[in-house]
């Protein structure tokens, strides 16, 4: 694989001069001399899956560099991606299978052979199955290329209880856009001229290509960025306008924008007439939601709302209200996302350059394996009954935990966990600990001793992404790609890829027939339908197949049927009405902050992924400890100064954390970074350092999607 040399990069990058925005991204490097080589693979340090080139010297990974061939990763590698080397050579990483030797969480471990770990786990799973049926086992995972094998083992074992991460993340957004457009689109920030972004802190919470496209847009093309957030984030610092909106009132702001755009007839009438359903109901629905009313709710002046609405509509179709990811904020989250979808729809930005674009996909083949019988029992989270519109295969995490704790509708006594740390990922750590306690058996597959692994009975060490080969992953988008993650170095320790861990268990559970293949056979089948000759060879050599030319407008044809009930874009949703939910987003104000308390808000940082990576030295030195952000007004009132040790308490937990007095937050909110206050001593840099937000967060969820609502917790703050 050739690496581009800088003179060529340079030759194509007259960006700033020509004012052509980021068009350089898609110029192919010319075939020039090869200066150094690397093994192409795919980063796993966050969900972006950027293409990397691994430089290996003497069997040791020396450096990871960006692979410019993948347009989605925009020829870059972030701090986390660069730090992946430190995960491989981390002296504290999991090096062999472990079985608990003391009490849960006591930290006494017995290193065992793979055979013993598999035998013991299979025995425990079979015991639970005999007593409670296969539905007595729970299989929890976070997305990854090998997650499919783990989930399949749970299903083949007969459990309906597969629980994934979306209901802790973006389930409400996914559902809201799907209910409206029949699909979740991407946002063409490379070409948008006007972007409204609420809370999606794109310059600290990196998403490719959105982060790179937006910074280019704002700084080079002079696109307008309107940013709403209770915190003055890096994104706020780059925005043209920042509004520290009253938390939980985004829906009021959006409804008022729709109100103004309709009242002043600034919507795209031809598009609304041709492609949408229920516009008349929207017109009636938003009448009371005036900018003056919204000013009272949001704290954003009516004149600003009117101006933003006008500019947004004027810039359309190159204008988007950006959806964002981690949309787990408030109990009305689904409806707030629905309002965004409606606002985007009525200005006609659908499937236009600079607007919202339905995703393209790179085709690939499928490996056909022997199917198993569908699990017979209903899901323990009762998703069909309580969240009929939500994605059944992903489950709803918080309702699930409530049911497991109550033992209703049935007991769940074994918990298998892959690549997830529920003690930090799920609000209310105390409850999650109780959930662990009531399990007869808990096993974790991971690369590091997470807090949840620390409380498990068996820990299976997975090989690091640079030590294994994964299935080919298709990433839909405006610049869609299919990527391969291939082994760069041999496993350093006695670890295995998830598939082999699953196969060891399957053999002992009598399920071998369903997993009777190798990763090479799997990939070979997938590579067959890739849109390049010699697909597998191409993937091994380049790591990626991508479409670098966006396509716009394919769904704007009169006969196009959207994947909704009516075949149109559903502004008014009959399906929601039938499910007993508001067919149009109705506003109800958020709970008021009780006097003497603060609303706890969460957010991301570019050197941390979820609650992980904080222990890696190259990342840790930038965030050695988290602290509680407090506005000076609030700090003065409580006699708090930066560095003071605080006690922060919610109704479910209390933590000690140091104060950071800063103007960069609303006076009624406090904020802390995720990923600290770890219980596992094998994460030594963050063990008992700072505090874990999960301890404080209360259990609340969005009514429609079941997505966790993580900004509904109020805390009391006092100096220790």
């Amino acid at each position: 694989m050739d690496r581009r040399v800088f003179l060529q990069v340079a030759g194509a990058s007259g960006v700033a001069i020509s004012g052509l925005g980021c068009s350089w991204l898609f110029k192919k490097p010319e075939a020039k001399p090869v200066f150094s080589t690397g093994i192409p693979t795919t980063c796993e340090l966050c969900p972006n899956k950027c293409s990397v080139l691994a430089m290996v010297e003497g069997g040791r990974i020396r450096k990871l560099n960006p692979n410019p061939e993948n347009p989605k990763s925009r020829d870059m590698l972030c701090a986390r991606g660069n730090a992946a080397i430190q995960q491989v050579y981390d002296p504290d990483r999991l090096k062999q299978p472990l079985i608990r030797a003391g009490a849960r969480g006591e930290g006494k471990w017995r290193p065992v052979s793979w055979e013993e770990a598999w035998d013991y786990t299979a025995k425990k799973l079979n015991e639970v199955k005999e007593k409670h049926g296969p539905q007595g086992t729970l299989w929890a995972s976070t997305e990854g290329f090998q997650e499919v094998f783990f989930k399949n083992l749970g299903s083949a074992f007969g459990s309906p209880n597969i629980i994934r991460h979306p209901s802790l993340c973006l389930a409400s957004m996914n559902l809201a856009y799907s209910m409206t457009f029949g699909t979740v689109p991407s946002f063409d920030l490379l070409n948008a001229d006007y972007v409204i972004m609420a809370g999606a802190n794109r310059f600290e919470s990196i998403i490719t290509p959105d982060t790179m496209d937006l910074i280019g847009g704002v700084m080079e093309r002079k696109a307008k960025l309107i940013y709403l957030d209770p915190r003055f984030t890096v994104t706020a610092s780059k925005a043209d306008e920042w509004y520290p909106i009253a938390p939980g009132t985004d829906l009021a702001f959006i409804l008022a924008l729709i109100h103004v755009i309709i009242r002043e007839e600034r919507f795209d009438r031809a598009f609304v007439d041709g492609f949408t359903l229920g516009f008349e109901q929207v017109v009636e629905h938003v009448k009371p939601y005036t900018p003056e009313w919204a000013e009272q709710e949001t704290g954003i002046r009516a004149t600003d709302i009117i101006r933003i609405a006008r500019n947004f509509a004027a810039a359309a179709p190159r204008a988007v209200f950006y959806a964002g990811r981690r949309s787990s904020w408030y109990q009305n989250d689904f409806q707030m996302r629905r309002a965004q979808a409606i606002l985007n729809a009525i200005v006609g930005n659908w499937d236009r350059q600079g607007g919202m674009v339905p995703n393209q996909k790179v085709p690939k083949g499928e490996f056909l394996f022997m199917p198993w019988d569908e699990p017979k029992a209903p899901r323990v989270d009762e998703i069909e009954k309580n969240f009929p519109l939500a994605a059944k295969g992903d489950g709803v995490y918080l309702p699930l935990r409530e049911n497991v704790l109550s033992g209703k509708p049935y007991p769940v006594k074994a918990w298998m966990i892959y690549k997830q740390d529920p003690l930090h990922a799920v609000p209310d750590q105390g409850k999650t600990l109780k959930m662990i306690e009531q399990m007869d058996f808990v096993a974790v597959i991971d690369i590091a001793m997470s807090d949840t692994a620390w409380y498990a009975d068996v820990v299976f060490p997975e090989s690091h992404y640079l030590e294994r080969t994964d299935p080919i992953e298709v990433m839909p988008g405006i610049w869609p790609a299919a990527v391969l993650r291939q082994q760069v170095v041999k496993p350093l320790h006695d670890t295995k890829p998830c598939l082999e861990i699953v196969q060891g268990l399957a053999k002992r559970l009598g399920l071998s027939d369903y997993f009777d293949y190798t990763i090479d056979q799997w990939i070979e089948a997938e590579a067959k339908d890739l849109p390049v000759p010699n697909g597998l060879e191409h993937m091994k050599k380049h790591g990626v197949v991508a479409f670098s030319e966006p396509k716009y407008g394919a769904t704007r044809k009169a006969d196009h049927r959207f994947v909704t009930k009516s075949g149109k874009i559903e502004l008014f949703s009959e399906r929601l009405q039938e499910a007993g939910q508001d067919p149009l987003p109705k506003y109800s104000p958020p709970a008021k902050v009780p006097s003497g308390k603060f609303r706890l808000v969460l957010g991301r940082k570019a050197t941390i992924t979820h609650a992980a990576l904080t222990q890696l030295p190259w990342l840790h030195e930038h965030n050695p400890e988290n602290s509680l952000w407090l506005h000076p007004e609030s700090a003065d009132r409580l006699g708090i100064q930066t560095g003071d040790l605080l006690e922060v308490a919610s109704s479910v937990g209390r933590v000690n954390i140091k104060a950071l007095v800063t103007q960069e937050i609303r006076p009624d909110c406090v904020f802390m970074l995720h990923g600290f206050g770890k219980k596992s001593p094998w994460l030594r840099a963050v063990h008992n350092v700072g505090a874990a937000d999960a301890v404080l967060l209360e259990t609340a969820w969005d009514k429609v999607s079941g997505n966790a609502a993580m900004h509904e917790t109020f805390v009391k703050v006092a100096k220790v």
Partner: protein
Amino acid sequence: MAKKLKRYALVLDSKKCIDCKACVVACKAENEVPVGVYRNRINVERSGEYPKLRTSFDPEQCHHCDNPSCVRVCPTGASWQRKDGIVLVKYDDCVGCKYCIIACPYDARFHHPETHTVDKCTFCVQRVDRGELPACVETCPSKVRVFGDLNDSRSPIHLLLATRRYRVMKPQTGNGPQLYYLL
């Protein structure tokens, strides 16, 4: 025809910097810089009163000056400058006297806790000599950095400096810094 000498320099569009630390970590990885010391950094400046706040980020490292004071003060000749402008330290000749650390107006040098010599950004000379970009430049997510040869009239940095307004840090020192910040 004699080949024209190269003059390497770095142009930075700081407005695009999002303080993500990719450059800092890439540098650590490429140059095996220990934890706690840095060959490059991002200067952060905060100002204003809530809610009228401002934050700016300025990435900085060795300015590879035309007239480097670190080279002038070095008693052993360990600090030296290549013909292409890259300022380096010969680690074998460095006695760790730290004169250069004091002489540098940009605080770009540090005492390496393991080698006990002075250390600094080398523009990733090992990569540049292979025809590659410095690690910080190649990895930068928001493409703040443009590296190249100022003496090549077709190079993007030459064109950028010819067509855009820019500033350098502390020009009054007479060091002739070669990190150019676009305005």
